[in-house]
């Protein structure tokens, strides 16, 4: 089960990077960045997952060596990472809108005034 997670997150990251490298449309590049983000989020959540663990809600007195729970820290990290991913997408989209106004195109190989 956890193996599927790792496989899916690898596929998501690979697809995202493929999208960023080959697609010329700026929106598709943005979608590729999103896919990479989701893949990484899945990776972090999977890292903290223990099959059969309970929710990590304990008093300090209840906590013993035998308590078996899902690691809560990766979930907190994922939340942060999701927020950052949303910011990336918002910022990319706003830049794309401005770029379209200025350059009149969405093709990345026509947006290359800075080169060489």
């Amino acid at each position, binding site marked *: 089960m956890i193996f599927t997670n790792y496989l899916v997150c690898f596929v998501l*990251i690979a697809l995202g*990077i493929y999208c*960023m*490298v*080959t*697609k*010329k449309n*700026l929106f598709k*590049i943005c979608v590729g*960045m999103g896919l*990479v*983000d989701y893949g*990484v989020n899945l*990776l*972090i959540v999977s*890292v*903290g997952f223990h099959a059969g663990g309970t929710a990590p809600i304990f008093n300090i007195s209840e906590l013993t060596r035998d308590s078996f729970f899902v*690691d809560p*820290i*990766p979930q907190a*990290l994922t939340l*942060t*990472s999701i927020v*950052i991913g949303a*910011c*990336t997408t918002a*910022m*990319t989209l706003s*830049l*794309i809108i*401005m*770029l379209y106004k*200025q*350059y009149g195109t969405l093709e*990345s*190989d026509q*947006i*290359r*005034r*800075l*080169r*060489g």
Partner: protein
Amino acid sequence: MTFDFSNFINNFPILAIMSLFLGAFVSSLVGRRSAKVRNTVVFLSMLISLVLILALIKPVLLEGKIINYWLGNWEPVNGWAFGNSLEVDALSLFFALIVVVAVFVSGVYSFFYMSHDDSLVNYYTLFLMLSGSVLGLVLSGDLFNMFVMIEIMTFTAVALTAFRNHYEGALEGAFKYLVVGSLGSTSVLIGIALIYSQMHTLNLAQIAAMLPGYDSPVILIAFAFLFVGFGSKAFLFPFHPLAADAHAVAPASISLMISGVLTKCGVYGIIRLCYCLYQNMDQTFVQYFVTGIGVISMFVCVTMAFNQHNFKRLLAFHSISQVGYVITVIGLGSALGMSAGLFHAMNHTIFKGLLFLTAGAVQHATGSLDLDELGGLSKKMPGTCALFLIGAASISGLPPFNGFASKWMIYQATFQKAGETGNFFFVVVCVAALITSVLTLASFIKVAQSVFFGQLNLKFANTKEVSLGMRIPMWILAALCILPGLFPDKVQQWLLTPATQAAMNAPGYIDAAMGSGYAASFAIPAYQPQQIFLSGAWQPVMWLLLLISVTLAVCIVALLGGDEKATVTSEISADTDCDPKYDSFFSGEASVYSQVGGSDLFWGFKHNWRRYFSFMHDWHSGVVNDYTLYGTAAIAVALVLCVIFL
């Protein structure tokens, strides 16, 4: 209750970071009403953080104290760090000093430089957030915190790059920076996730204790990801096109921040990664890897600078070239190399900041950055011209400026390494460092000629010197260029030696956070302070005298020898190049308006290397997909190399 100052300074790091972030918040709240209030808030928050960091010099740098601040007072329990922490040792403080000084200078310069722009509230909010995140990054003792700070840093830098969005290419540069920069950030995040999966902690000190004895391929993969991620933040090869694009279009004060401060964060990350977390700098492969990346960045970028026609884009390539120097010597793994690297990192912020600010002044006064268009500005802007010459002499490594002192140390470090190991690779590194320095000097002669000397373009006949408010920050940086160059031994004693020892003293870093004896319990040997031996002469003034006397000697010989012009008798035949333009450097061909020769001082050089230059020109295609591909390729290559060799 008595006031205990020595404990109270533990709060200084967090207060310094908070003051910048609070300043960002407050200035956006109150700044819309009046520009004066806004500038006061910005100035105060920068000043407070500057003072707080300066106050830490005595305890941390001179007395060797390591400050640990556990947020919410969550101290480690039974050898497990639960809480988030700030850990300030001499290395962190060294970089924090670079950051706060650069932020202060850049902020004061902005007050005058940006005065013609509108919606400045947004500018200062983003600027202070950028400053705060960078300071938070270098002071952080927590891996994930570093990632969050890197992300804030990237976003604010992207937004500020696009701030003058009516400029040609500003949005384009920002977009490329965002897309490829997010690839670098993702790489860091993957590395952190992999490390967490093995270590189950995010505290730098605890990871540093557990990692070296831990044997798992996952850790090696994480090293590759983290290295490429931090490298992308330092714009190392092959991420350098981003820096060129972003610098050329950003406001000059932001160029200072990107080149002087953001790249230093990448350098800091790499130092922490190799020296503290993995402690694998004694392995030959890591030395080859880090030094190799540094040499490639330094050489490729300095040659790329030859082809540039935009003042700031040219400076941007030089900036990455100098960061390449820093990474090169850090990769040597010796105490002298580390010391030289830190010195050059500091000097790079100073002289590159100065050069970007002079470029900004030229842009502010004339409205142009085109090297083919500018010229003869030394009569119109003598102050800026003098400042530019100081910066150019520093970056080219002329005595008695700071660039000479640190480059001299870099040559010594590479030479010493080559001598000790007898390895041909390090001999090449030493020679490459020298050649790069010569090319830098050549390139800056061209810039000085095209911008400040030569013929004045009639378009700019009414140019006026920039205001005093813009020149004062530049003079501060110019003074900082000269002082370390005159007293390198003091800088060595007060700043570099403590920072170098702290960088190499991983057990000390671990014990300060987790309690003494923690590093030893993981079988990490105690640190023996390393001596920094400087071979050879160390007298910048003597070198200046030597330089002057050699120059005089050359002049005298040239005068005595008469001026026989070399007569060029080459014949144009079918098997040589048919373009007579390249036969000599002085052919009088009509050309577009330009200050240097017919088209350039370096015709011969460029002509002989034309295949390389045209290849590199095509390689920097400007298409965001290509840059993403280079970044992905860098990650892939790093992964393969680390898994095979590490």
